[in-house]
């Protein structure tokens, strides 16, 4: 044991650094590398489902090198390396870099929050910051949205995170509505029955919640019906684009017509001569 102590206390010839100091330095760095590898592997594993591979690798590397730098910083005093000078220089450099990369860091942190909070997923139809489309990718710094016109749009994550996000497909089903106008002389009950029959034939017009069709108002030009239909959130658009025309065709086949906008004008002379115009109901 005395031999080992003596050996560790031997000078390396560089200032007052002993072999023991070098071994301490090497040991701490080695432990740091092992911890970094374990943590980086677990970070990759934990983010398998949440991040694309390239970003997962990048994040794991960042974590890996931060831990190694930390281990080196802890070990350097054993080599009589004064960190205070480095800290001052590092502090100034950090301040400069911090100001320069403020928005990058903000986007990065927002990206991490987005990944963990999960308000949107790849493939979702969303509206964020006035942009509507489907999410193509959620990256560390930005979110890629393809608009319905097929336009590639990159939105910084900070903007996504701080904006109101509307996710159209977060819930399994969504509702849409049609306004259907029929003439006053048509039977509204029959129109409702026919519309209900047409809606029932579409597989994705959901059975439950059941569609609602009712007389909403008595308009200037006809009776206004409202049809409210639930459909799977990811398929509602195809249901919406198909059903309205089918309903209109079925109504017309049964003599129920959508009326044109119209005005009945009573001329003063005509009223004076006939005297029977006032109070006549609007039929068409």
């Amino acid at each position, binding site marked *: 044991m005395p031999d080992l102590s003596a050996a560790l206390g031997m000078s390396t010839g560089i200032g007052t650094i002993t072999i023991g100091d070098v071994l301490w330095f090497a040991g701490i760095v080695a432990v740091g590398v092992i911890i970094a590898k374990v943590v980086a592997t677990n970070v990759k594993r934990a983010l398998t489902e949440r991040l694309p591979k390239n970003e997962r690798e990048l994040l794991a590397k960042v974590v890996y090198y931060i831990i190694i730098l930390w281990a080196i910083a802890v070990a350097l005093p054993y080599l009589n390396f004064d960190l205070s000078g480095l800290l001052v220089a590092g502090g100034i450099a950090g301040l400069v870099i911090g100001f320069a990369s403020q928005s990058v860091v903000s986007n990065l942190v927002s990206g991490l929050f987005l990944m963990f909070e999960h308000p949107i997923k790849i493939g979702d139809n969303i509206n964020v910051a006035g942009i509507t489309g489907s999410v193509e990718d959620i990256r560390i710094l930005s979110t890629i949205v393809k608009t319905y016109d097929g336009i590639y749009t990159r939105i910084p994550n900070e903007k996504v995170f701080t904006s109101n996000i509307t996710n159209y497909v977060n819930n*399994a*089903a969504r509702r849409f509505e049609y306004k259907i106008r029929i003439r006053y002389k048509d039977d509204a009950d029959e129109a409702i029955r026919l519309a209900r029959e047409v809606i029932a*034939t579409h*597989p994705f017009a959901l059975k*439950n*919640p059941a569609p609602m069709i009712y007389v909403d108002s008595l308009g200037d030009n006809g009776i206004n019906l409202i049809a409210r239909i*639930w459909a799977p959130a*990811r398929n509602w658009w195809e249901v919406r684009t198909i059903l309205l025309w089918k309903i209109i065709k079925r109504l017309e086949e049964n003599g129920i017509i959508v009326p044109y906008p119209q005005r009945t004008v009573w001329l003063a002379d005509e009223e004076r001569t006939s005297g029977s115009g006032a109070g006549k109901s609007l039929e068409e």
Partner: protein
Amino acid sequence: MFGQYHGTFRYENGDILVENERIDGLLTYRRRCVGHAFERILVASKNARITINPVEPVNLPKDITDLLLIEFTPIVIEPGTMQTVYLKFPVEVGVFLESEKGIEVLDIFSAGTQKYTLYGPPAGGVIARWYRSVVYPEIPSVERFREGVMELSILNTSSEWAHVSCAVFNGVDMKIFYNGDIVATTATMKIISPAIAETGFIDAPLIPGMTRSVELYKARKIRVIGRGYLMEWGL
């Protein structure tokens, strides 16, 4: 129609036509069913065969869910009791190309209509294929290209009376069997509380000697993680 075919064949029954013909030297699969047609030219070895059998009824008009909800006449069941009833379920027909190198889904069709529903509330609920059935005490007669028979054993393990008017199943868990007369499956429903139940399928034919169907999720090489379905949004 159900079974295995080598080379050319032709099956026609009412609205359904399925054939594999050699047209201009090319082997061509054709199907016509209630107005819808489908055609593919097949390039396959001589050992390849076509298998036609009933499949999990959650694929048409397109694959949007794995769940099947069967609504039936409400049943009130005493705590601790079990009742076996028979329901009808919709049948979809799967056509598979099989060879030593693997299996491929060629076509899926149905002579029936489809309807979907939401099981649960709009926020948190799930989309399911919807079908309505009468409750039968014995195996009912069915038109086997449109409907199958489900033997459902309902067990009330809760300490309260339970009202049951629907059962939701995970389609990928379904074990379908067929013979010359019917398509059938055997299912269970364990009521845990008046609002929660667990459903599942039993891998056994309803009638001895029935042939087991090739399942779609196996042909599509989909790994099935969960078994059964937990009905959390009411019975």
